[in-house]
């Protein structure tokens, strides 16, 4: 949809330049500073970053846009902020007898904030739109399990869509529709809490540009004003009938260029909630905020992935080298000293937010993920040593300050091997270039990888990353046993069977070590004395609707 430049702007270059120059004198008005102190009538003033993409449910794949969708939308299911369990929201029931055909019944009485009812069509139309190739929605692949996806969204480059609607969706009545999947997927209902599956009102389809300027949803908040790149004001929607109405009068999201400034503003009392504590402040944050500092696990795992397609890493013995490298990394020391305990050393390939019932199993990786320098050296020697005698670990140098920890990881490996040239960091200028090299299979040595879950399911941590040919299998890992177990898990009759089979599959990763689990990332936030009942959900987004303002 980007670049579809239908709107031609009748402003010439010179005019723009002149306007910019002329605005100096006329711009004096509007100088009423909004950053006045005090709590401002039950409004939560929170920090925000400019969303990267237009605010459409299926086009938002990062956390800043996700925050807004979280407030203005409610989907079929919602993830419990505390337990991460998927619970029915708009769905009355989602049933299936064969893990492939699902019958979704909706609760009655739900409406969008413009008065339109939320019915089966709101979902079916939205999902069809989200999937259509010409709309180029970034999250289109989330619908790939639904039957007919390959017709609406053919994967081959240059292929034309031969249908505009998903054949797997059938409307039964206004409050019921059926979904047929193209494969068995027992945990499918639990994926439906993801924002990409949100319903859309008719207003979206009739005038998409107007809708994008001020999105209309069915959640506990409605957007009262949106100044792109600067701030968004959301107010409590009084017509909201759901079980989780807002506990405050509204939320004001302010865009900050730099999280340091947001933190300074929090200290000065200009803002109430900052949900990303800058790394440089981590040492002071406890003394600055005391109990008003939150540091909880989020559904993010950081790994070092290997290009298994490269001849350097494809030999049978190379798994031993990878295991050895994993054991050469002193995770505890790095998380303590570099990350100030905002990361937790990883012992499996999922995340603690899943909980034991959801599939997280502490220590699943065992000794292969525990620091042991002498064993590491021995394993690497048994595996034939590092390919070529040395390795590099690639990372993107532009954002995220990865250099520090990559250097620490390399240092740890070098110490274990007693060779200070064994491992060095290899920065790549920009994130785009970095990702480009990975997806075009140009890597010869390991690279950093991060995985943020889309929904709190063990399936989301394993299948997209390690299943043969899966969408984000950057290592191009392929193991018949792993694939077989994943298929079994998806076809399992119950959720608990499914989870335990997924864990069996995960065990295969210990043997093959396509990616070294490093640590689970925590979400962090700080808030002012004006607020209480502040918590982060498993996606490390503040649960805005539960915040109480003094």
């Amino acid at each position, binding site marked *: 949809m*980007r*670049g*579809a430049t239908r*709107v*031609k*702007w*009748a*402003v010439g*270059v010179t*005019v*723009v*330049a002149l*306007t*910019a*120059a002329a*605005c*100096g004198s006329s711009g*004096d008005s*509007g100088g009423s*500073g*909004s*950053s006045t102190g005090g709590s401002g009538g039950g409004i939560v003033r929170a920090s925000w970053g*400019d969303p*990267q*993409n237009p605010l459409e449910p299926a086009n938002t*794949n*990062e956390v800043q846009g996700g925050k807004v969708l979280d407030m203005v939308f409610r989907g079929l299911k919602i993830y419990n902020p505390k337990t991460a369990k998927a619970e029915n929201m708009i769905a009355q029931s989602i049933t299936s007898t064969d893990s492939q055909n699902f019958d979704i019944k909706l609760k009655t009485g739900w409406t969008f904030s413009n008065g339109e009812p939320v019915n089966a069509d709101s979902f079916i139309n939205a999902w069809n739109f989200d999937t259509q*190739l*010409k709309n180029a*929605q970034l999250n289109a692949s989330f619908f790939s399990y639904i039957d007919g996806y390959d017709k609406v*969204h*053919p994967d*081959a480059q240059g*292929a034309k869509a031969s249908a505009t609607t998903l054949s797997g969706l059938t409307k039964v009545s206004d409050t019921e529709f059926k979904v047929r999947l193209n494969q068995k997927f027992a945990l499918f209902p639990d994926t439906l809490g993801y924002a990409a599956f949100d319903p859309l009102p008719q207003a979206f389809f009739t005038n998409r540009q107007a809708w994008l300027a001020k999105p209309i949803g069915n959640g506990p908040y409605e957007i009262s004003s949106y100044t*792109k*790149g*600067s701030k968004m004001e959301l107010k409590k929607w009084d017509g909201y009938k759901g079980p989780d109405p807002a506990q405050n009068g509204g939320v004001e999201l302010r865009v*900050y*260029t*730099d999280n*340091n*400034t947001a933190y*300074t*503003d929090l*200290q000065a009392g*200009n803002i109430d909630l900052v949900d990303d504590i800058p790394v440089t402040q981590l040492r002071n944050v406890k003394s600055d905020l005391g109990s008003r500092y939150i540091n909880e696990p989020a559904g993010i795992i950081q790994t070092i992935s290997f290009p298994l397609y490269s001849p350097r890493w494809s030999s049978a013995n190379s798994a031993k080298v990878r295991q050895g490298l994993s054991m050469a990394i002193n995770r505890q020391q790095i998380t303590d000293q570099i990350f100030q305990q905002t990361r937790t050393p990883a012992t499996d390939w999922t995340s603690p937010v899943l909980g034991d019932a959801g599939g997280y199993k502490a220590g699943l990786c065992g000794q292969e993920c525990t620091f042991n320098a002498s064993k590491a050296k021995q394993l690497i020697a048994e595996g034939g040593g590092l390919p070529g005698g040395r390795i590099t670990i690639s990372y993107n140098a532009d*954002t995220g300050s990865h250099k520090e920890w990559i250097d620490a990881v390399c240092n740890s490996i070098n110490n274990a091997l007693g060779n200070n040239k064994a491992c060095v960091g290899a920065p790549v*200028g*920009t994130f*785009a*270039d970095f*990702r*480009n090299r990975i*997806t075009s299979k140009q890597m010869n040595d390991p690279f950093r*990888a*991060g995985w*943020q879950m889309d929904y709190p399911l063990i399936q989301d941590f394993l299948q997209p990353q390690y299943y043969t040919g899966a*969408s*984000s299998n*950057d290592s191009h890992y392929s193991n018949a046993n792993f694939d077989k177990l994943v298929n079994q898990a998806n076809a399992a009759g119950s959720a608990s069977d499914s989870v335990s089979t997924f864990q069996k599959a995960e065990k295969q990763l210990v043997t093959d070590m396509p990616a070294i689990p490093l640590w689970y990332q925590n979400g962090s936030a700080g808030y002012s004395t004006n607020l209480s009942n502040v918590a982060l959900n498993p996606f490390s987004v503040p649960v805005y609707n539960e915040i109480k303002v003094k």
Partner: protein
Amino acid sequence: MGRYVIRRLLQMVPVFIGTTLLIFVMVYGLGDPVAAMFGDRTPDPATAAQIRHDLHLNDPLWQQYLIYMQHIFKGDFGKASNGQPVTELLGTAFPVTLRLTIMAFVIEAVVGIALGLFAGLRRGRFFDTGVLAMTLLVVSIPTFVTGFVLQYLLGVKWGVVHPSVGEGAPFKDLFIPGLVLAGVSLAYVARLTRTSVAENSRADYLRTAVAKGLPRRRVITNHMLRNSLIPVVTFLGTDIGNLMAGALVTERIFNIHGVGYQIYQGIVHNNPPTVVGFVTVLVIIFLGANLLVDLLYAVLDPRIRYA
């Protein structure tokens, strides 16, 4: 004079094309913007291909540049990554940065010239030494240090001002950022004025002015200052462009949503239209400011004539 201006304006055309081409090539050399859009996830090939097609990314670079320039002359600067037209961003960001620039410029010109003048008149005395020492100090401290220190002390510790700039960037919030932004240039202006004043105070025409009995004020303002300002004006003129483009650090520290912020966002989100669009307008401003400075010479120094 008129012919000179026309000649200068014509000279701007190749400069403009050259700079935009350079920027365009550099920004598109940053990597595939589509790869960054999907984050750590591998883009699904069909969606990525569709986006590439929409953005003309499959065409050769020179063709993309032509398409881009064509659109620019129609007033279409393309779209930012969040779907907002870049013209809209230009419209909101430039006024904000311009306010900051005006603030910084006024501080820099007024305080800098005043300090320089008095220091130059009292050469070797206590005030002069004080100004020299102070400016040396200011020049040697990087902007982000003064920025963070002032922000912390005035904004958090003593609570005198808002640590960040509110919406719409009111002038009262812009004083501290303006001061920080002006700091280094202010020091240069003061030193430049001081030297120039000191030099001219021994000039023949000044001795003549004093000898024919003009009051001291007239000697200083009309004869000394006006002649001493020529190098200062050159510096101030080129500094307008520098202030607008160089506000990136200051804008980040004080959360000002101006030009620096948008360019930074454009780079982080890997969105070429934003970066190229903003830099293109900055190029125009640079060119305009330089022309203005050259014309001002003639006003200040009657010996200079343009044909």
